[in-house]
């Protein structure tokens, strides 16, 4: 392993701050407005950032701290903000996420909410603690999912007798693209099983034009469905890191339901690649007791067939994979499967679990050639990559300058993608998503070879 000098400063970070993830989750719940308890810049920056990826309206309210608020506490501002959001948007839920500002001054948001007279506010108020100096946007995302599930399924609910004749699954997909979420819904529809997907921003953050102005865009997981999660037969949670976190005994949405309502929870990596998708469908089969439709067998068949056809072009190629830890793990697993060596697996996240997650998914002979880094920024990544002679990079738009400096193509995947259209329409998961990733990678490599060839053969 190559040692890099540890730097104190972060140059070109490969992570975003915690409340951004929470704001995204709240966009995936029907009729919900996110409200950041902090300075107005936070909500403006995060709106602008999410919009640059989704190219859709993104509304995040703010409690709008002033200097005075920062000194005397944000209680009054938060109450006023909640009242105003409730009046203007008549939301079903207001998702309140804290920021570094309100956390530093020690505002007790739960207490502020509890002390409020909420009789005139029909919206459910959910609070998630997301200090920006702890963790990354992924942590904010998972914490928000967990907070919503806990609040909608309090442990005071008496568990009624459930014959559980009809299978019903809770699915916590983690931070996936709109197209991924739509694909998951399609799969469950095909196996004719009820599923609650949380969050589901696939419609709200990719809707058609409006006949009527929509204060809150349509779409999202219905709150009633979240409240009925305690009646499901099983939960599924995507993300190997999240799975390890749960194993360590930390709370997740799935573990809350398991612990309080005896709903078994299956943790699995994001289903990218054949192996991971096989695992997903196997679990699906077991949990739903349904036969997986022919359609998916065919998708798988075509995918394997194309692996054979395209192997020549990807075998032993060297890739840099970066982004969220769960994304990196799943992507590296897929790359290893098609014979690409993910020579550098890097993330800005610092869960301490990335190495172990990769150990479990990548075959030993390839793993030897993989350099794993957590808490890494793009400057270190680029420096490191120079020694690894990569053929391409795969990840979000933020890696473009690195890829450009290295003179290698970038395959765009994950979040954020703001230098191309359709970032939220990239399908990463399932056999179908794997197929698209595979084709894109092969064609990117072919294009590079063709463009840099003196002759430019037009046949493969």
């Amino acid at each position, binding site marked *: 392993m190559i040692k890099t000098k540890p730097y104190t400063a972060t140059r070109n970070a490969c992570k975003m701050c915690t409340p951004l993830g929470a704001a995204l989750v709240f966009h995936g719940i029907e009729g919900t407005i996110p409200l950041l308890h902090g300075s107005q810049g936070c909500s403006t920056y995060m709106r602008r950032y999410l919009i640059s990826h989704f190219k859709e309206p993104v509304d995040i309210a*703010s409690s709008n701290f002033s200097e005075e608020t920062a000194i005397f506490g944000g209680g009054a501002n938060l109450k006023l903000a909640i009242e105003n959001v409730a009046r203007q948007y008549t939301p079903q839920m207001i998702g309140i996420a804290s920021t570094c500002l309100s956390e530093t001054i020690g505002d007790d948001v739960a207490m502020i909410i509890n002390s409020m007279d909420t009789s005139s506010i029909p919206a459910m108020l959910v609070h998630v603690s997301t200090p920006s100096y702890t963790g990354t946007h992924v942590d904010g995302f998972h914490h928000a999912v967990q907070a919503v599930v806990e609040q909608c399924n309090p442990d005071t609910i008496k568990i009624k007798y459930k014959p559980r004749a009809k299978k019903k699954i809770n699915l916590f997909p983690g931070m996936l693209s709109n197209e991924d979420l739509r694909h998951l819904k399609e799969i469950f529809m095909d196996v004719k099983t009820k599923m609650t997907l949380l969050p589901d921003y696939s419609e709200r953050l990719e809707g058609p034009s409006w006949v009527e102005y929509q204060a809150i865009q349509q779409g999202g997981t219905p709150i009633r469905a979240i409240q009925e999660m305690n009646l499901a037969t099983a939960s599924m949670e995507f993300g190997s890191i999240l799975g390890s976190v749960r194993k360590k005994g930390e709370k997740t949405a799935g573990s809350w339901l398991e612990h309080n309502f005896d709903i078994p929870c299956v943790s699995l990596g994001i289903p990218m690649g054949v192996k991971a998708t096989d695992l997903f469908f196997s679990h699906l089969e077991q949990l739903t007791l349904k036969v997986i439709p022919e359609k998916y067998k065919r998708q798988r068949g075509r995918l394997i067939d194309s692996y054979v056809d395209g192997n020549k072009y990807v075998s032993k190629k060297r890739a840099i994979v970066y982004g969220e830890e769960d994304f990196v793990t799943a992507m590296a697993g897929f790359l290893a499967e098609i014979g690409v060596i993910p020579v550098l697996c890097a993330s800005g996240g610092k869960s301490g679990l990335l190495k172990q997650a990769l150990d479990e998914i990548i075959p030993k002979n390839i793993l030897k050639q993989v350099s794993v880094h957590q808490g890494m920024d793009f400057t270190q990544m680029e420096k490191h990559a120079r020694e690894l002679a990569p053929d391409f990079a795969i990840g979000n738009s933020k890696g473009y300058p690195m890829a450009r400096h290295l003179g290698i193509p970038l395959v765009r995947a994950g979040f954020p993608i703001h230098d191309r259209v359709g970032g939220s329409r990239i399908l990463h998961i399932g056999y179908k998503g794997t197929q698209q990733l595979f084709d894109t990678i092969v064609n990117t490599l072919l294009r590079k070879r063709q463009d840099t060839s003196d002759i430019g053969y037009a046949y493969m």
Partner: protein
Amino acid sequence: MSTILKDPKNIEPGTGVLPDPEEVRKEMLARYPAKVARKRSKQITVNKIEEDGSVPEMGSNVRTVPGIITQRGCSYAGCKGVILGPTRDIVNITHGPIGCGFYSWLTRRNQTKPPSDDHENYMTYCFSTDMQDQDIVFGGEKKLKAAIQEAYDIFKPKAISIFSTCPVGLIGDDVHAVAREMKEKLGINIFGFSCEGYKGVSQSAGHHIANNGVFTHIVGKDDTIMDAEYKINLLGEYNIGGDGFEIDRILKDCGISVVSTFSGNSTYDQFANSHTADLNTVMCHRSINYVADMMEIKYGIPWIKINFIGAKSTAKSLRKIAAYFEEEKLIKQVDEVIEKEMKEVEKVRLDVRSRCEGKLAMLFVGGSRAHHYQELFKEIGMKTVSAGYEFAHRDDYEGRKVIPQIKIDADSRNIEELDIKPDKEKFTPRKTAEQITALEEKGYEFKDYKGMMPDMDEGTLVIDDISQYETELLLKIYKPDIYCAGIKEKYAVQKSGIPMKQLHSYDSGGPYAGFKGAINFYKEIDRMVNSRVWGYLEAPWQKNPELSAKYVWE
């Protein structure tokens, strides 16, 4: 629903009949609770121009009500993102958790062009101390010092600046003390900004903080006088989409030299040397007038307001600069450049005008853009029916003459006003008092900005810090042909079937300044307002006579 929405003649586009603005205003305020309505009523005004040229008082630069989703950013955004961001050779370190640095990393499209690849350009970097729990608890000064040391070791820059984010002020990290200590240690210029996000009501506070810092720590450090005849500074031009490059091209053709731009395509050395210019020209009055004022007092450089958005305005501004120098040679050269450039401009303008004449525009952006861009629309025959700023003050709406009447509230008081005195050695008035008076008698305006409202028609609606709800009403009632704002508003407006032009980032377009910029803008607006895509919004099989709902654009 009020009569204004029911009455079809009020809402038929293309009939030339516009709705009664007073009614629109009433409708807008109706939904707000009494207290918010009272506050908003001061910021929503029907324009009226009195005989003496005065306009109604415009509520502005007041805090947005919590929970109302606003366009505004924060003090940090104004300081780091807007003013210091476009300077390529200062290492900008964000002191705070990762978010602020990340979100301001190349998100503004201010372009820069180093003379060669070997020259410094740190703009592509995002430096952050990435504060963690332990830094919040035990203080982040040590980490900040280490970050500065690293930046120095790697880049050996001329200067390093530090930007404070919200928690920094709260935990009591003294960025200025750290800056002083490291400056002494490393021997390069290092300075900090207390631009915590909660300061002031918008990014405007950050502009002021940045102006003070740049003026105190950089301006006046290098007395080399540029060997050129007509030396000016270009203030408040940020080179979005290459605007500054186009302006530089024109000025060069005219024989006018730019000592420093604040701060598009700028360098540390330009700032340091800027006090040697003969004239300060101010583009964006809101964000940079503080530096202009301070340079006048300390160094004796007069300032004038100019505007390079719009071909006519560009010509007018060039002539204004030439008139200042009072030299026939320059005046002639400027006239020649204008004549040459206007040929192509006119050709395109008349062609585009034939398709855009009479269409309606709305602009809600910035602290000067909502005013400047009306010029371009006017040139192609489009009418601005409503406009407003995001973070401007009363003087930007009503003109500088109202400055003495502006009430100082708690938010403004928190932003330091520097007490500037003439510099004992470097103060040299560029013109004598008599020369200034003589020019003024000829109608020349120094140190003045007339504001947006006197330039707008009577009966237009002026709205400060517009909310989403108000935007929606405007779209519904006026059905404008184009709406201009920023990326946060873009997609909500387009969902209503109305084209939306970003005037912060230019939708990856530009330049729009100067003569070539005007041509670009005419063509862009032509493409947008005459696009066929809006006709495809509804499929033929979607038309269901039983449904009475209508799209806004129908």
